């Protein structure tokens, strides 16, 4: 007999010190850069969105170019609840946005995840385009191309009002991101996460051991859509406005770039990639208002060519080299 059998999967693995770093940095930024809290909140919201994308692309191997659809659905759900139904409680809006996006993810996932490769990419793109067009045409509900205004948000838990400096928005987004990160981390370190890794490694073999591969993919796709919906609701609540660009293909492409920049399938790639992209975008746009995209392009080409596995991959290589050098 073997007295010790290691604990099931990684669920019990304690949080490593390095995993606390993003949260320490985020809290420090709140105090050190009070003038950049709006940008900070935007970064946190996009991290949430990119994290949801990593769940499907990095962990389940589902390639999608239409993930912004769920972000937009969440954004419009929160906005419509406030502007048309007078539901202004942010947590209620958040729950509704996540649920609606999750349900749409489930419904579309049942259909699109039967396909793979180019067909899958095209179908996700088509669903995103359909959502965009629906939002564009349903002007009485969404405001169409002018966007949905008249969104007002009640104080969080009745106490914390969204202020002009973005303090509440920043801390609120940070809190939501933290909770979702913890849930995603737990999920990925559970048997569910292991089965996703198995599907990504070898789908046919997973079927060969009797796994319900398609069901797993639909589940993760729905969860990811729900998280993207939460991110969308956060954007609506912090901006008090929703525009069509929340659903656009450009956003789907942009978040993919952020993920690749940070490192796909790494959980923390979303954190570093999104922060690097949005900070670079902000700084470059200030210095080179006409050509800032060129700078972002150069950054991406540089990372793709010289940092396999994104910025986190580069960090890994650097750490390994340092370790070797210190041993010598």
């Amino acid at each position, binding site marked *: 007999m073997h007295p010790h059998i290691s604990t099931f999967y990684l669920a019990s693995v304690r949080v490593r010190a390095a995993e606390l770093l993003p949260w320490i940095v985020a809290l420090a930024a709140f105090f050190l850069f009070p003038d950049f809290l709006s940008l900070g909140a935007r970064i946190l919201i996009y991290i949430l969105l990119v994290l949801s994308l990593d769940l499907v692309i990095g962990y389940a191997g589902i390639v999608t170019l239409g993930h912004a659809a769920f972000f937009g659905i969440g954004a419009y759900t929160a906005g419509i609840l406030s502007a048309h139904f007078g539901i202004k409680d942010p947590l209620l809006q958040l729950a509704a946005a996540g649920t609606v996006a999750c349900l749409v993810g489930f419904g579309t996932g049942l259909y699109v995840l039967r396909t793979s490769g180019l067909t899958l990419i095209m179908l996700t793109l088509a669903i995103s385009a359909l959502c965009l067009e629906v939002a564009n045409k349903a002007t009485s509900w969404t405001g169409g191309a002018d966007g949905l205004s008249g969104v007002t948000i009640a104080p969080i838990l009745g106490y914390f009002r969204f202020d002009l400096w973005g303090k509440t928005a920043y801390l609120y987004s940070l809190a939501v991101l933290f909770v979702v990160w913890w849930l995603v981390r737990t999920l990925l370190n559970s*048997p569910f996460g292991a089965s996703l890794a198995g599907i990504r490694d070898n789908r046919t073999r997973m079927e060969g051991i009797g796994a319900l591969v398609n069901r797993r993919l639909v589940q993760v796709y729905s969860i990811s859509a729900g998280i993207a919906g939460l991110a969308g609701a956060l954007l609506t609540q912090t901006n008090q406005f929703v525009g069509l660009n929340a659903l656009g293909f450009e956003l789907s492409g942009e978040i993919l770039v952020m993920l690749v920049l940070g490192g796909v399938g790494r959980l923390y790639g979303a954190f570093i990639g999104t922060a690097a992209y949005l900070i670079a975008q902000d700084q470059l746009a200030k210095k080179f208002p006409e050509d800032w995209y060129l700078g972002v392009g150069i950054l991406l080409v540089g990372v793709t060519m010289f940092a396999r596995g994104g910025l986190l991959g580069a960090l890994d290589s650097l750490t390994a080299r340092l370790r070797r050098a210190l041993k010598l």
Partner: protein
Amino acid sequence: MADVLHVSGLRAGYGPTVILEDIDLTLAPRRALAVLGRNGVGKTTLLATLMGHTTVHAGSIAMLGQRIETRPIYRRARTGIGYVPQGREIFPSLTVEENLLIAERGRGRWTIRAVYDLFPRLAERRNSFGNQLSGGEQQMLSIGRALMGNPTLLLLDEPLEGLAPVIVDGLLAAIRHLLGEGLTAILVEQSAKRALEMTHEAVVLNRGRIVWRGESAKLLANSDTLAALLTPERHASLAPS
């Protein structure tokens, strides 16, 4: 009790390309069958067809009396087929223990402890990732993973291929142990002598058809027939029995 496996008039291959023709097989519970033949005669295709990886053009496959030839792969696995593929196909990004636990299905003889008892080396390497294992360890893991599904029928496709002799001995002992316990199995193996020693029955394939079937011990005792069956130019003189 129903036969574990009953194959009748099977014609199968990859897409429109037919590899197997007129395959009839019956395997009773607690019996082990060796599938022999030269390279490229359809041995792996036969196992792949039972598992659902190929296209069935005609015939039937029944498992414990249930027709399965139209069932998808995962449902065949859930019916009770455990498959140890030729390439091992370990999940590289999962640890040894995760590779095993992910395949756990049904209650039965095979638990993770039982697999570790059969392959103590896997217990030692339980936290290593699939891509960090040697060929022998991968093969142990592949067999262990198939056992975790508590299969009614185990398909072993060249489990000793490409392994060092010292590893082969250990794996052989484990496979002998499994078959000795009465696990119903089909074994595809390049070494005819080794396969015949471990099994009750044998079939020899040539060009996708069964050209000989009978007791393993009988074929093992008749080295001339065995040599003739496995030598290409001498096939023509042997009619199927």
